[in-house]
C-alpha cells in the first residue's frame, strides 16, 4: 500500500490533500515534496499536535512559508483525499 500512496502523492504534487495516519491525526495541506519514504506537506493551518517528522520549510517552493512543511511516513498513511482536481 505504501507504493500506492507514494504514487498518489507524486501524482498530486503541489495539490491540496488531506491525509489521515494510523495515529488518528488528520493532515491537510499542499504536497511540497515526496521521497521514497515520506510525503512533505505544508499545512494550510497550524501544524496538528502530535505530528511527527522533521521540519521542512516551504520557502523556495513559491508558497506562503509561514507554516513549515513536515514529513509524514508513507507507511503510516491510512487515508488520502485530494481536492482541486476535476473528475468526470
Amino acid at each position, binding site marked *: 500500500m505504501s507504493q500506492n500512496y507514494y504514487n498518489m502523492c507524486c501524482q498530486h504534487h503541489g495539490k491540496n490533500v488531506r491525509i489521515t495516519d494510523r495515529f488518528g491525526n488528520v493532515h491537510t495541506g499542499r504536497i511540497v515534496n515526496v521521497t521514497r519514504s515520506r510525503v512533505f506537506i505544508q499545512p494550510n493551518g497550524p501544524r496538528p499536535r502530535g505530528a511527527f517528522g522533521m521540519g521542512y520549510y516551504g520557502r523556495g517552493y513559491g508558497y506562503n512559508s509561514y507554516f513549515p512543511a513536515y514529513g509524514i511516513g508513507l507507511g503510516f498513511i491510512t487515508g488520502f483525499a485530494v481536492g482541486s482536481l476535476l*473528475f468526470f
Partner: protein
Amino acid sequence: MPDYLNMISSLGIAGAHPGGLQLTKQFLTEINLPFPCRILDAGCGTGQTLSYLAGLGYEAAGMDADQRMVRKAKNRLSDDSVSIVHGSLELMPFESGTFDAVFCESVLSFTNLKSSLNECHRILTDGGVLAAVEVTLEQPADPVSFKEITGFYGFQALQTEDEWIKQFEISGFKNIRSMTGKDFSFDEEDPDHDVDMDDKIEPATFEVLSRHQEMLQKYVHCLGYRVFLANK
C-alpha cells in the same frame, strides 16, 4: 471498460464528478426534496453521496455498473441500511415509479443517453426529480480533438448544454433547469475526493491519471459541466 473508468474504480476515487461532494450538497438544497423521500444514486461509485444522503435520514439506494464499485460502496456503507445493487442505467433493476429522486453524477455521459434517460424517467414517481451533473462541450471541438476526448474518457455523449436540454425533453422530462458551478459557492481546493485503492495497482493506472491531468489542461476551454434538474 475504458481505461479512465478503470482508473477511477481501481483507485476508488470518491465523488468522481465535477464539484465533488460539495456540489452535491449544494444542489441538494436547491431541489428541496420532501421528507421522507426515496433517492437512487445511479452510478454511485464508492458511495460517498449515498453515505451523505443516508446520514441526512433519506431512504437512499445505490446502483453501479461496476462490481468493484458496488463492493467498495458496500464497504463504506457497512451497516446494510442502504441497498446497493449491481446494474446498468440502460436497463435498471427497479419497478416503474420507485424513486422520488434519481441522482446521476457524471454517469449519463458514459451511457447510451436515449436508453438511460428513458429508464430514469420510468423509475421516477410522477413529479419526481432527476438531478444530473454532467460534462458539457463549451465550444466546438475539431473532429480529431472530439475523438481524442471521447476515446480517452469513454464518453458516449459529449454535447453542449442545449443538446443536453433537448435530450431531457425528448425523454419526457419537464421543467428543465441548468446551472453552472458559478451558480453555487464551494471551495474547489477542499479535499473531498477520498480514495479506496485496490491492494495492487498496475503502474499503468497512474499513467492514466497523469494523462487525465494532461487532458484537462489541453482541453480546459472545451470542457465544462452543468447541473441539470428536471421533473417527470
